[in-house]
C-alpha cells in the first residue's frame, strides 16, 4: 500500500476536505488496520485522507511529520501521539494556522485538541484484561507476570497502571513478579522472555501481555512448553494473528477493539468537526461501529471485544 497518502498534488487546490491521520508509526499490523479503516472512510465520505507517520515510534520524527503536514495545508490533523507532551507545541502551531486538531488512539494534551477519539476507557480496558485473566486462571491467588511492548509506551503504561491498581484493590492475593517486563514490541523477544520466565518461575499462573505482538510471543512459549492448562495468557492482540494460539488454549483471550473501526471513526468525526458538528453522546456512526459515548471533547468508541477460540474467525483484522 502507499501508506494511504494522497498523490503529490497541492492539497489545497482540490477544494476537497483533507484530513491527515498520523499514527504512532507506520508499518505495524495494528496501525495498518486503522489505516484501512481511515482510507475506507475517506472513500465513503468523499474526503481526502492522508495517512502518514514516522517509521519508528519516535516522538521527534512524529513532530517533523506534523510540521510537514502543516506546510501542506491540510484541514484536519488527527494524531496518535508517541509522547503527548512533545506534540503540544506543534499542535498549537497547527491550530494557529487554522487547522483542526484531534487525537486518536492515545490522548494528546487536552488543551490543544478540538476533539479526542478514544477507542476505550483506559481504566475499563485494564480492568477487563485482568478480570479475564483471573477468570481464565480460575483462582484469585498466585503469581502473574506483566509483559509490555515497551517500558516507555505511554498508553501501555496507562493500562498496566490500571491493571496494577485493580490487582491491589480487587485481587490482593495476586503477586506480580518482576514489575513490567519489556519485549521491545517483538514477538520473538516476548517468546524468548516468556520461556525464561516459565523456567524461572515454575509457580507462574498467568501472563498479562499488552502491545499486539507480546501476547502472541507469550502464548507461543506456553504452547511450546505444553503449559496451556497451568498458565493462562491474556493480552491485547489482533484476532487473526491470535487464531492459532486461541485454538489450542495457549492464549486464553485476546482483548482489543477493532482498530479498523477506530480509523473509520476518526475520519468520520474529523469530517463532522470540520463541518462544525460536535458529536453527541449516543450517536450511532454509520457502519458497524455502534453508539459512541461522548463526554465534552472526549469520544469513546465503545467497550473492548473479547476474542476467544469461538469467535475469532468472525473478524478479519
Amino acid at each position, binding site marked *: 500500500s502507499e501508506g494511504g497518502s494522497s498523490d503529490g498534488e497541492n492539497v489545497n487546490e482540490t477544494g476537497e476536505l483533507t484530513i491527515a491521520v498520523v499514527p504512532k508509526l507506520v508499518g505495524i499490523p495494528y496501525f495498518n488496520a486503522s489505516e484501512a479503516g481511515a482510507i475506507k472512510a475517506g472513500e465513503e465520505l468523499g474526503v481526502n485522507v492522508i495517512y502518514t507517520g514516522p*517509521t519508528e515510534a519516535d516522538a521527534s520524527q512524529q513532530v*517533523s511529520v506534523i*510540521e510537514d503536514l502543516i506546510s*501542506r495545508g491540510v484541514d484536519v490533523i488527527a494524531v496518535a501521539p508517541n*509522547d503527548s*507532551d*512533545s506534540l503540544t507545541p506543534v499542535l498549537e502551531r497547527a491550530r494557529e494556522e487554522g487547522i483542526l486538531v484531534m487525537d486518536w488512539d492515545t490522548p494528546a494534551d487536552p488543551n490543544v485538541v478540538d476533539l479526542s477519539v478514544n477507542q476505550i476507557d483506559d481504566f475499563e480496558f485494564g480492568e477487563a484484561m485482568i478480570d479475564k485473566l483471573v477468570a481464565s486462571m480460575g483462582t484469585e491467588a498466585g503469581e502473574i507476570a506483566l509483559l509490555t511492548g515497551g517500558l516507555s509506551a*505511554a498508553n501501555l503504561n496507562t493500562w498496566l497502571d490500571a491493571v496494577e491498581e485493580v490487582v491491589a484493590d480487587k485481587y490482593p492475593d495476586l503477586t506480580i513478579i518482576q514489575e513490567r517486563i519489556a519485549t521491545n514490541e517483538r514477538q520473538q523477544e516476548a517468546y524468548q522472555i516468556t520461556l525464561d520466565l516459565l523456567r524461572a518461575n515454575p509457580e507462574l499462573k498467568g501472563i498479562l501481555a499488552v502491545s499486539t505482538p507480546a501476547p502472541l510471543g507469550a502464548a507461543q512459549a506456553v504452547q511450546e512448553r505444553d503449559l496451556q492448562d497451568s498458565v493462562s495468557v491474556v493480552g491485547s492482540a489482533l484476532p487473526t494473528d491470535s487464531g492459532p494460539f486461541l485454538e489450542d488454549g495457549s492464549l486464553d483471550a485476546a482483548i482489543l477493539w477493532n482498530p479498523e473501526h477506530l480509523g473509520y471513526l476518526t475520519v468520520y468525526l474529523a469530517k463532522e468537526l470540520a463541518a462544525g458538528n460536535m458529536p453527541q453522546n449516543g450517536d450511532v456512526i454509520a457502519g458497524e461501529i455502534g453508539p459512541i459515548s461522548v463526554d465534552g471533547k472526549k469520544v469513546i468508541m465503545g467497550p473492548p471485544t473479547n476474542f476467544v477460540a469461538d469467535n475469532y474467525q468472525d473478524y478479519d483484522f
Partner: protein
Amino acid sequence: MKLLKTIRLSKENTLGFVLLGMFLLMALFVPNFLSAGNIKNMMFQLPEFGILSLAMMVVIITSGIDLSLTYRAALSGVIIAMALSAGAAIPVAIMFGLLAAVLCGLLNGFFIAIVGVSPILITLGSMILFESISLGLTKGNSVSGFPPEYRVIGNGAVGAVPISLLIFLLVAVITAMLLNRTKWGRGVYMAGSNPVATLFSGINTKRVLLLVYLYGALLTCVAAVIMTSRYNSARVDLGSSYLLQSVAAAVLGGTNIQGGYGKVIGTVYAVGIFQLISSGLNLLGTPRTFVSVLMGVILILVLMMNYYYDKLADKKETAGAAA
C-alpha cells in the same frame, strides 16, 4: 599542477553543489516547497540533528564512533526535564543536564582515552547503560511541565530565524574554529591519523581524546536542550532515530571513517541534504519508508561520485605530469 589543484573541487564543494542542485530541483518540482511554512519547518527541524551529527563527526575524526550519542542526549534531556519539573530555574536545570552529559562523556572518555579500549565497544556498552538509567529514572514515562520561557529555546525565533538554528550555526562555527585553529583541534586530526606519532610529538593524546568525548558531551547537552524545549518533554528514546543517521551524515559530509579527516562544512551540507530529502518527500506525500530508501541511495551515489571524480582528477594529473 598547481592550476589543476585549484580547479579540482574538494569533496565538500562537490557536496555543496549537490545540496544546491537538490534545493533547486525541489523548488521547481515540489509544490509548497518554497512556502514560508516549509522553509520554517526545515529551519526548525535541522538544528538538533545537525548538532548531533557534528558531535558524531568529531568522534569519527579520531577514528572512533559514538554509539551512545543519542542515549546520552536523552539522558541529559531527562535530567533537565526532571529538574525543570521539580521547579529548578532554567539555567540550573541546564547545568544539571550538562553535568549528566559530562559525566557520561567522562565515562566514555575514561575507558576509551585512558584505559584505551576501542570506542565502538565502550559506547556500545554505555549506550545500553545510559538508556537504562533514563528508563529507571523515568520509569519509561515522559517528563514534562516546563516553564513557558524554556520552550522559547526550541520554538522561538529572532525575526524569521529560529533561535535553535542560530545555536546550531554558532555550534558549527565554534566547532570549526576549535578543530582548525586550536592545538586541541590539530591534535584531534593528528591523533586520528596516527596516535603514536602524535604522542611522540609531545601531544597528550589521552587528554585530546578525553576532551573529544567531553566536547561531544557538551554538544549532546546542547542538542538535548533544543530537543526537550522543542518537544516540550523528555523521554528515554528522545532522538534515538538520529543515531545511525548522524553517522551517515558525517560520512556523507566527507569525514573519513578511518579518522584523520572531516570538515564541519561537509557535515553541515550533508545534514542539509538529508533535511531536503526528508522535507521534500514529505511534501510530495511520499511514504516515509521511501525517504529511508532514498537516503541510502544518495549516500552511496555521492560516494560513487567522489570515486569517479578522484579517478578523473588522478588521470588528469598523471597526464599533466607525463607531458
